[in-house]
């Protein structure tokens, strides 16, 4: 009799998902699916509302990366109304965005992913969690908790709110930065950078090196990548051009406004999550493991792969080491974790770089805006991938239509493939246990959905 294994809920990820794996009569994997179970309809309910309010609404798409939606949205609204923020406003926005990345990466690596490595993929589920780390290594746990708190606090003290922010406003930013605030932030970011450098070494030596055997193999698939770079090809998170790279390393760069010429979204009738794919490659869409078509990935590994270099010194050094080991583009799915730690270092370095710019304490933070008819695309690199918001507005400056491609969704097709790959590899002749099922989830967790 054929059986279906179901893993529900997927745990230590953001959001709501279930995996089902169909076994054939011999007990081998016949099919598998990663189902996204709910849908909220933001594209519908922001319609008719004044566009300047949208950045305060779409934050609720995701409570883990609300700054990303906030800022992609504010950029889209700027474009609808035809304004650009003054330099100080833009610096303040970018600072908040990269600082939010810092907090997210600490959360993901230590709270969500690390238990699998520090306590082991086969540890009992009651132990294999941050609480297990609290018991196994209380010093580390305390340090991680303190760093997360510091990161969130710095943002909150300066911008009012860390979760579901409000300080990004059409035309700029809602408040300037005082000299004292700048000093406090600089001090805090230095502490965070120190921790990031520790995390990178700790992650590489204590965690990833010990799992060499699965780092390159678990959930491994061959795909293209999408991310953002500046005109010099350096990695960027807040703005820049999109770069879409094929699995063979060749790539095209294009302005974010042109996303529709490159990306389409595929729908399977067993999931509410849409699956973006590269239409411009003109090869169609297929999640076939041996011959995938149109499949690309986003998020940390993608950004590390597509960029020519990183503009800050410590992260660049780490990138070089990474490339020596794994090549470009690197395809191992668990390498997402490694790439995440490199980005953690970059975001700390970048925060300090932005804080060092004297314009950041300027008074001119916001241009007055005139609501009106328009169309605008806003994009940022969110922790989970390239995030795109596009709106059109009527003459009152109210939304008439919206399209959003959320970071995580780019990786839905690849995640489905990684699940299939891991399951096929690990489940044989009907044999599986908790440790094996957790390894399949680890393939998903690498993407940090």
């Amino acid at each position, binding site marked *: 009799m054929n059986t279906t294994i179901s893993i529900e809920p997927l*745990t230590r990820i953001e959001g709501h998902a279930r995996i089902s794996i169909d076994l054939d009569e011999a007990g081998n994997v016949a099919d598998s699916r990663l189902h996204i*179970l709910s849908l909220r309809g933001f594209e519908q309910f922001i319609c008719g509302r004044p566009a300047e309010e949208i950045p305060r609404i779409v934050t609720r798409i995701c409570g883990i990366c609300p700054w990303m939606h906030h800022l992609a949205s504010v950029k889209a609204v700027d474009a609808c109304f035809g304004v650009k923020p003054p330099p100080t406003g833009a610096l303040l926005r970018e600072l908040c965005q990269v600082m939010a990345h810092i907090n997210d990466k600490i959360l993901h690596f230590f709270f969500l992913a690390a238990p699998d490595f520090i306590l082991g993929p086969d540890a009992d589920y009651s132990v294999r969690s941050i609480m297990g780390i609290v018991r196994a290594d209380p010093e580390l746990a305390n340090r991680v908790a303190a760093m997360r708190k510091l990161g969130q606090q710095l943002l909150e003290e300066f911008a009012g709110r860390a979760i*579901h922010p409000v300080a990004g*406003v*059409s035309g700029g930013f809602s408040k300037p930065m005082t000299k004292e605030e700048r000093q406090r932030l600089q001090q805090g970011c230095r502490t965070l950078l120190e921790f990031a450098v520790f995390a990178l070494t700790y992650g590489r030596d204590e965690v990833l090196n010990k799992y060499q055997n699965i780092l390159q193999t678990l959930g491994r698939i061959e795909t293209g990548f999408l991310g953002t770079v500046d005109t010099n090809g350096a990695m960027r998170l807040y703005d820049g051009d999109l770069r879409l790279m094929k699995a063979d390393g060749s790539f095209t760069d294009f302005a974010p406004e042109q996303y529709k010429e490159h990306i389409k*979204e595929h729908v399977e009738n067993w999931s509410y999550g849409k699956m973006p794919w590269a239409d411009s490659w003109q090869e169609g869409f297929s999640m076939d493991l041996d011959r995938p078509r149109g499949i690309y990935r986003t998020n940390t590994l993608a950004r590390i792969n597509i960029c020519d270099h990183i503009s800050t010194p410590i992260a660049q050094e780490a990138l070089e080491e990474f490339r020596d080991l794994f090549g470009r583009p690197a395809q191992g799915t668990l390498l997402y974790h490694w790439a995440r730690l490199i980005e953690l270092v970059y975001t700390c370095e970048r925060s300090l770089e932005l804080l060092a710019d004297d314009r950041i304490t300027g008074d001119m933070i916001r241009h007055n805006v005139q609501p009106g008819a328009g169309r605008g695309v806003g994009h940022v690199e969110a922790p989970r991938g390239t995030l795109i918001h596009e709106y059109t507005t009527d003459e009152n400056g109210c939304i008439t239509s919206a399209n959003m491609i959320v970071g995580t969704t780019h990786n839905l097709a690849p995640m489905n493939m990684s699940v299939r790959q891991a399951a096929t590899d690990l489940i044989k002749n009907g044999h599986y246990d908790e440790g094996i099922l957790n390894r399949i*989830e680890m393939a998903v967790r690498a993407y940090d959905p």
Partner: protein
Amino acid sequence: MNIRLAAESLHSCSGCEISLLNIGEALIPLLNRLQLVHLPLLMDHKYSDPAGSETEISIPKAEIGLVSGGVANTHQLQVLEAMRKSCTTLVALGTCGTHGGIPAMINEWPMADALQTVFSTVTTEPVDVPNQDTPPMLDRVYSLDEKTDVDIFLPGCPPDPTIIARVLEDFLDGLTPEPVTKSVCDTCPTRRTGKSERKLLRFTANARFDSNESTASMQCLLEQGFLCMGPVTAGGCGHQGEPACIRARVPCRGCYGPVRHQDNQMLGMLNGLVSQGIDFKTIIDRKSMLRFSGAHGRLRPLKEKKRAS
């Protein structure tokens, strides 16, 4: 004494759980006093045996259960019922759970229309709405107390970490948490002069303030002519004596829901504005005043004739 804690998130954004984690260092002693039995964001307890013999959702018994998010599909409803069965005290964590939250804005449209819109955006291949192995959506988004008995309401989008920590500590110490009775204005230090604008402005220009001075020297934003929902919103956000958005010098949008659970934020606010002689017809998109509390039938699709016009 070992207090067991279970947590679930339904029609939500996970922000409430992140706020829980933002308790920071103080979280660790808390975690040591609590025994987590189910919390999908942090630990790997599953609903049932993967072999699928039991399709029931099983959640271990717990003294305290935190549920964030409202209810919008059949699956979320099952999870909520399972939580209710397993938990002695059920806490609605966050405004989605207490009043529907942002996702309940969809209640202004028939659910089928909303699904249609999502699956027909410019970049989406022309398809039918997924309907296989995807839990059917309910007719609208419900708050938790519309679907089950809730013992403690903890609004906020998300509730401030200090509020969550205090409730958990109270619970561990055997105390009943005090409900909020203050509004955001009651906790706001801004200067009130008694003189206000007669017309409301859109927030397309910043408020007037001196950035080197504290918020206490800034004139009340409502008086400056910006719609600020402070008067009709439950207080508790922010620390150090200033509401969180006011700290960022932007007006309140009402994310903690109404001051008393059953109040209507839009009616309350408009009533206040009208009593002050402000022309409510100049307000663009008044239904946004219910953007955090659209459950309980507050937001609903307009009758056909009105929508067409």
